[in-house]
């Protein structure tokens, strides 16, 4: 027998270990925020960066597993309203520290079918980014269209660059594109959306500008 560990084991165990530390960092930041409100801007930035590291780790792990065909999909039903509420809750510290107004607009009865850790990672990543680029407002909404459940994340920032608009799956992903968190995050989103299939339909992601708040509009279509 070889005494070398395979790479997926190394990746899995080190990601697991790092995430314990990240969890403690996030918890400490929350405590510091409560104790020293005067530092809320700097702590908010710190919180944002820790979340980014966390999101990167998750995406790295998931993409690696999907590539190895080792990811175990678990599609279950979710009440979208609760799900969106949770994604906002995940980013609460930075949202409060930046004084951003959030709005959730989804009918109580909308049910989505998806792998919650994948879609949770995806939405969370977009929300973390939106919080960074928005001015004052953030809107999460959901509706049903044409056999899809759509999850929208809108902000009132400057919007997405012109060349990114439209259906994300048609992008040609190169090293230049995926460098930088937006590109990598979009690549992840697109892969995860496409992994969701039902009744001959496949999930996808669209980017637009404008929308209810006049900034970037990220729409995830889930079959």
């Amino acid at each position: 027998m070889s005494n070398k560990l395979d790479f997926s084991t190394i990746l899995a165990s080190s990601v697991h270990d790092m995430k314990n530390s990240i969890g403690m960092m996030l918890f400490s930041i929350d405590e510091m925020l409560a104790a020293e409100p005067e530092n809320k801007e700097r702590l908010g930035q710190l919180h944002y960066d820790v979340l980014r590291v966390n999101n990167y780790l998750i995406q790295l792990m998931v993409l690696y597993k999907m590539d190895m065909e080792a990811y175990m999909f678990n599609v279950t039903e979710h009440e979208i309203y609760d799900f969106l509420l949770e994604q906002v809750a995940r980013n609460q510290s930075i949202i409060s520290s930046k004084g951003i107004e959030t709005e959730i607009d989804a009918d109580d009865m909308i049910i989505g079918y998806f792998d919650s850790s994948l879609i949770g990672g995806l939405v969370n990543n977009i929300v973390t980014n939106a919080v960074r680029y928005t001015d004052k407002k953030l809107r999460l909404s959901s509706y049903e269209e044409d056999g899809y459940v759509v999850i929208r994340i809108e902000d009132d920032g400057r919007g997405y660059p012109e060349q990114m608009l439209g259906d994300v799956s048609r992008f040609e992903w190169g090293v230049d594109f995926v460098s930088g968190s937006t590109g990598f995050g979009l690549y992840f989103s697109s892969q995860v959306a496409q992994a969701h299939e039902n009744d001959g339909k496949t999930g996808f992601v669209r980017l637009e500008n404008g929308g209810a708040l006049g900034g970037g509009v990220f729409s995830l279509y889930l079959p």
Partner: protein
Amino acid sequence: MAESYSRLKFIVVDDFPQFRHAVKNMLESFGATDIDLAARGEDALRMMRNHQYDVILCDYNLGTGKNGQQVLEEASYYRLLSQSTSFMMLTAETSSEMVLGALEYQPDDYLTKPFNKEMLKARLDKVLRRSQEFMPVTLAWDRGHHDDALAQCEGLLERKTKYKLHCFKLKAELLMEMKAYPRAEKIYEQVLKARKQSWALMGIGKACFYQENYPRAREAFDALLSMNRSFVAAYDWLARVDEAEGNIESAFDHVKSATRLSPRVIDRQAWLGRLSTESGDVQTAVNAFRTAVRLSKNSSLKRPENYVELASALLQAGNSDADSSNKTSMVKEALQTMVDTRRLFNERPEIKVKTFLVDGDAYLSIGNKDDAKRALERAVELYETVEEEILDKDDGSKLISGLEQTGQLHLVSRVNNVLDGKRPEDEPVDEGADSEANEAGVSLYQQGKLEEALEAFDKAMELSPNSLAVHLNAAQANLKFIEVNGATKERMDKVRRLLAYIKRTLLKDTSNQRFDKLLRIFESLYNKG
């Protein structure tokens, strides 16, 4: 919601002390006051035996002992969870798939680490809201009133609950428990028409299996595997279908696949061992039973059969091995395994009979007739003390053929007497006499020192979690305590759990007079309260 948190009993299980306390702080900030902490799965299970928790937050990775999934499985197996208990598994991305693969025992929800206070609150609120909505169903279910629980589900559907699918799922599970398989199958089918869901496929497979519609069952389990080839339970069920159809080869292959994916399940290793024996693969059998026995070392799910089967497999492997030194070492291991078994199950003569039978075979196989004779004589003595209801008649036949081989014909009539229901004396078996704590409990109970007796029995249960006698004693002492001091919810729940355990432990179709009597007392108290 703060008010409702203050009424709930929580337990947080995590091996990381800072994390445990962080979660405790979060829960306290929501208004919770009753929060227990445990570092290891074993501790958590012990605490669950003594308290009824409303919410269990359990990490998946618990270090060296049991993992979160094993805690959930064992707690479900021993009925430590009521239907209304919310079990939330805390996972890292890297472990969620292991939890998912289990399919049969699913937590009520998962929460991925890291999470903050707001997320935990959002998720707990959600789980508690749902649990609140289904309270009438789960209460009826816990009391065994299945029809009432079904009617409550219907009511929820009529009122257009937003948890429609969950309601279907519970309904189907209730029907499965009631053995109303065709009705359960219809519900699963209806769900599947709308969308391919793993739990519904699993359900339809099981419902078809119990109706002996094996082709359809196979189709459902195959479909599950095409969704995801890591669904361990699908392999297990395919193997059961194979066995039912008499296809041992294929069953062997399916259990092998399941074991590769999830090797740490004791019952599955034992199953693999039995199938290997049937397929004539003695080496795999030895390895599988060895693993089963090794895994059960830190589990309360110790099954004496596995020890005995390990020893039998070792003897078989030894007999077919041309190398005599290999044979000697396997016979030695078999004999040692039987010594261990007698130590572990000292209060169970029906098991000890089997161990001495193996000893007899072992000694005979190496030509040591004197020790074989001694072992068989011991087996006969013990066979005479086995209670009628649990007597294994096969052991009687094995004993007779063993005695014939050794020429101890004078003992054959004693075995025949036992088989004919004639006992030398009608004395009750000395149950659990080896347990000091149990003896202390009995003596305290007789002196009327109930509280101290209860403590002693709790300790005895901790020391020998498999002992039926200790559980019966504890149930009796608790009922006495209720008679004297009045009923509390906690105490009644405890008795309910003890009785549920006893019921599970008793073999099917056998009755135990003492249990029946305790159950009657409990039910009369329950109906009063």
